[in-house]
């Protein structure tokens, strides 16, 4: 029996690993997006005293490797009596880490946001939160979509780190298969193919969003 046939018989393991990676990725990136939006709203200036600690927090996160944050949640939090299992600490670390990156991307775009629009909105009596939700956020998200797409790919790649804190995902599946059958080359080629396919699909989706955005006139502001 050739190595590829063995792998084909173990396809369930790959598939469940893939689904697990995609679940982690989906949950984490949705949470990260929300965290990014909330951080941007808080930086918006509703509470000026909050801005400096938030900037320090975001910059601090951006200076740390992802894995050390996962370690902090998985091994460090039990010292405070909070015990997260590997899955939750992995998803939590991914969400907070990439939330900070997304907030930083948004902040960069917010700096170049035309102030005339905000004055016009205030003149029309928009409240701060309505203005943020209806005017600022949609335009900033559409403007930063290439960077967001990049960040999505980084987040997907960071899910592989979770194998180190014993989360069962795609890389863990390949690792255990190559351990069981001694066919590391083929197992990892399949897994790398999975990651590649997902990142190509994400790139295509980002491009399609760009088409949608230019049809709706987001590029003309």
């Amino acid at each position, binding site marked *: 029996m050739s190595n590829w046939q063995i792998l084909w018989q173990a396809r369930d393991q790959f598939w469940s690993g893939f689904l697990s990676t995609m679940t982690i990725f989906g949950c984490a990136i949705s949470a990260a997006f929300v965290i990014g939006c909330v951080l941007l709203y808080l930086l918006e200036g509703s509470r000026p005293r909050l801005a400096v600690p938030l900037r320090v927090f975001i910059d601090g996160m951006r*200076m*740390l*490797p992802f894995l*050390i944050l996962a370690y902090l949640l998985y091994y460090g939090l*039990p010292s405070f009596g909070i015990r997260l299992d590997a899955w939750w600490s992995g998803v939590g670390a991914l969400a907070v880490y990439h939330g900070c990156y997304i907030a930083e991307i948004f902040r960069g775009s917010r700096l170049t946001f035309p102030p005339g629009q905000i004055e016009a909105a205030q003149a029309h009596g928009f409240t701060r939160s309505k203005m943020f939700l209806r005017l600022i956020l949609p335009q900033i998200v559409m403007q930063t979509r290439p960077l967001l797409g990049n960040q999505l790919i980084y987040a997907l790649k*960071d899910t592989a780190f979770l194998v180190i804190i014993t989360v069962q995902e795609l890389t863990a599946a390949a690792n255990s298969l190559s351990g069981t059958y001694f066919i590391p080359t083929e197992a990892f080629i399949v897994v790398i193919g999975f990651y590649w396919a997902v990142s190509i699909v994400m790139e295509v989706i980002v491009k399609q969003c760009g088409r949608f955005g230019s049809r709706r006139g987001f590029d003309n502001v």
Partner: protein
Amino acid sequence: MNASAWHMLLEGAWTTLWISGVSIAMGVTAGLILALIRLARVPVIDQLLVLYISLARATPLVTLALFIFLSAPTFGLQLDRNVAGILALTLNTTAFNAEIWRSAFRNFSREQREAAMATGMTPWITFRRIMLPQMVITSLPGLINEMSFLIKGSPAIAVIGIVDLTRVTNRISAVTYEPLPPILVACVLYMAIIGGLVWAQRVAERRANRLAV
């Protein structure tokens, strides 16, 4: 944490630093060479390089490190852990660096190249004396950014058993049963390393902007 724990942490930091340093040096050079080869547009090699860059950018470092370390023996190669780690980091960072160098090539001013040609410089001399010094300055911010990404990705090599700054915290807490202090110290050390790079990037950016004006 006692003195031996501090010693282990610093040793881990040194491991991270030297492995990353070697990979950065190799990755920057290899990226430049790949960018040059891609500029030559050799039919088959060009497509292969595009495939390599696309694959290397999508592959997680952990997966790549495991792949290289576990599958090298099936090809009859006995790789040392450190060599496998350096290889994984280098393969990853080369792809990004090649893109940075290539965009520096594409944005290089055409007037200067024409002027060099008019004064009778050979392509090699034009490259070495005119293009390379300016390209180093313009692409330095991007390259340093990629270096800090590499250091942030370097804990991936812990998966093949290299005791780097992240992994060493496990070793220490296995003795002391207090995982939090070594992790926090590792955080501070990482912040110092990457903060230094961010600062260098800011300086490099200021220089690049001065050149552009």
